[in-house]
């Protein structure tokens, strides 16, 4: 807005350096003047018996958005929600796994009884059913706990307060304050987050918001992070503190994501998209008493089942594809093993292995299926056949040389890699540019490779 495009007004260009450079200050003064006068008019016109916004609400807002307490409260709430999710999800997860894998045995028996060909039972049971069972048992419980809690905060009106707290940071990064809202949307689903960037109207800041949205850990990645964190980070300390440490690890990854968002935004606004952030009025809506029944229904139906269904729909064919890759042979080696062999050197450098990388690649359609593919990859490599709990998963992963460094690198790579297929498609639709879409995939991927490389190499040196 402060640049002059019309050549007819070229004289302005010459005097532009003479203008007060601190326009933000002038704008602020103008806006605060308007606010003061609106307040004084309102004071003479409005009488409220039990004022809506003077008592409890105002005090609550002062605390929630206060300079010193705002951020600690945000962190605390986030930690609390994740802790409840992690501790609460353990038991039902195990129960579901036991049930679903008992069913697998019955199915296998059935296939044997009717003399079904081996390839068919392999494709259907070991390929499709098993990945589905994993998606359901690993992902359903945490989602069923996490989403209602998150919706509760949303319904209470806490999210705009978060945006309020974050606004300053985003502006300092040269981004639009509304980007924290789109970032919050991204925690649900990056595709939705990218669409929500429409609320940012300046094209410059909107692109920054779109390109960095993938750094918000989405629904599809939360369960993976929670599972890995429970398995590896949790067991680093004694049983009593394991869920706390697991929670803190997930919180740390989320915070890393937010820090990356700010860092990359700042980088982009200083290099590719130079300019000044425009400012906006952020509304703090009144706190509402949340409707608990409504929350349960909405978060379970709209989010949990929606995400689960998508995972199932994508996991089944991806599971089948993985099984086919693992069971088609070229010169004595399976295609899967062949690709894994190619990817392995890079994977090792990044603290992971070829199977992990192929899981991320095959997981392009949806992040939900990275973990199931990973498991299938290990199983097809032939070490154990039955998995019935997180502990079994832990043993499987340990058997394949996982350490907490591996888990850390996988968690970081889960944060920093290309967005899922749906999100990429959405980015293409929103930006109408193949170049920005490509950048949105390469930027986090390169970051992920560099970060995991550094972490792994650093850890190797320290451990030596």
């Amino acid at each position, binding site marked *: 807005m402060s640049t002059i495009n019309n050549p007819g007004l070229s004289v302005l260009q010459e005097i532009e350096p003479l203008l007060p450079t601190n326009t933000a200050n002038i*704008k602020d003064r103008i806006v605060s*003047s308007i606010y003061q006068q609106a307040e004084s008019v*309102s004071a003479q016109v409005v009488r409220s*018996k039990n*004022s*809506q916004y003077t008592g409890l609400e105002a005090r609550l807002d002062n605390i929630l958005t206060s300079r010193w307490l705002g951020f600690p409260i945000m962190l605390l709430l986030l930690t609390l929600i994740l802790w409840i999710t992690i501790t609460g999800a353990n038991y039902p997860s195990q129960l579901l796994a036991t049930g679903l894998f008992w069913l697998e045995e019955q199915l296998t028996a059935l296939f044997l009884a009717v003399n079904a060909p081996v390839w068919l039972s392999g494709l259907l049971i070991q390929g499709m059913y098993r990945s589905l069972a994993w998606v359901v048992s690993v992902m359903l419980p945490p989602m069923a706990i996490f989403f209602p809690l998150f919706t509760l905060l949303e319904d209470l009106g806490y999210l705009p307060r978060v945006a309020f707290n974050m606004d300053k940071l985003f502006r300092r990064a040269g981004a639009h304050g509304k980007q924290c809202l789109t970032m919050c949307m991204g925690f649900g689903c990056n595709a939705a987050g990218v669409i929500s960037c429409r*609320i940012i109207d300046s094209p410059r800041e909107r692109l920054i918001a779109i390109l960095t949205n993938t750094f918000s850990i989405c629904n599809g990645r939360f369960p993976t992070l929670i599972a890995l964190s429970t398995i590896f980070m949790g067991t680093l300390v004694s049983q009593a503190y394991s869920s706390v440490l697991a929670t803190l690890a997930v919180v740390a990854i989320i915070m890393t994501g937010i820090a990356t968002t700010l860092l990359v935004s700042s980088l982009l606004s200083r290099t590719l998209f130079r300019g000044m952030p425009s400012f906006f009025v952020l509304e703090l809506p009144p706190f509402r008493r949340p409707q608990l029944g409504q929350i349960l229904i909405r978060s379970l139906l709209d989010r949990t089942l929606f995400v689960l269904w998508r995972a199932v729909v994508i996991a089944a064919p991806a599971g089948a594809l993985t099984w086919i890759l693992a069971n088609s042979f070229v010169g004595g080696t399976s295609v899967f093993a062949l690709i894994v062999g190619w990817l392995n050197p890079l994977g090792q450098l990044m603290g992971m292995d070829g199977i992990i990388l192929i899981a991320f690649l095959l997981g392009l359609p949806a992040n939900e299926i990275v973990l199931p593919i990973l498991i299938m990859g290990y199983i097809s490599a032939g070490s154990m056949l039955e998995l019935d709990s997180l502990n079994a998963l832990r043993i499987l992963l340990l058997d394949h040389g996982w350490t907490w460094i591996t888990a850390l690198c996988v968690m970081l790579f889960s944060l920093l890699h290309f967005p899922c297929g749906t999100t990429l498609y959405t980015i293409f639709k929103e930006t109408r540019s193949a170049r920005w879409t490509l950048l949105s995939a390469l930027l986090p991927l390169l970051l992920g490779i560099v970060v995991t490389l550094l972490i792994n190499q650093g850890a190797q040196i320290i451990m030596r």
Partner: protein
Amino acid sequence: MAINTTLLSESTENSPDKQNNFVIALAGNPNVGKSTVFNRLTGLKQHTGNWPGKTVIKAEGTFSHRNRHYTLVDLPGTYSLHTSSSDEEVARDFICFSRPDITLVVCDATCLERNLNLVLQILEITDRVLVCVNLLDEAERKGIHVDIAMLARQLGIPAVGTAARSGRGLESLKNVLDDMLAGKIAIRPRQLVYDPELERSINKIEKRLAPYLPAWINSRWVALRVLERDFSILEHISNHKNNDFPRQVLKEEVALCLP
């Protein structure tokens, strides 16, 4: 968007029956029941749910009252006119350049203070403003009382209280529109005052600009925008088909008077 704006202003200005046709712009913050007011007045069924970010489209409808015909233009809901987003720009450009006969600003009685920011900003552009304090029913339920007469006195423009969902107050809203157009209501709009330093700059810029600006534009408001370095407003003015000032002179004057 700009095209729409000009088209609309042309169509209204060239209309053969200009005497009896009036354009009313419907402005206001998001979620104050603007669309409900719109639907109530025009009898149309416009989709009411909206969220910031969906494509901004101006809805239009017509109605008649006391032998006057009205075209009601529903502007996108905005919190301010500072043009940091395209819906704010649409609203501002329409109010400024399409020059509706009356701008009807719908406010939420339950949080009037926030809504007044927009009212005061609109008053900087035009004084043909009618304030509609909506959601009175909800305000009453929350124990909030709004003194409408006092509000009108404070702002120096007419104000009407409504509860559009039940249709309350809409008849008197239409009557006041009619009275305003008939010149029966005295309007002395409250002017926003800024700190002394800003006022000095504003006055300096305004004095230099005023002789070259078209009569229908509020020169003080233009001066404020220039002070904010929002030069797009000058481009808009010089591009506007109704401009009756020499463009070259404007350029040079602006160059001289900036602080």
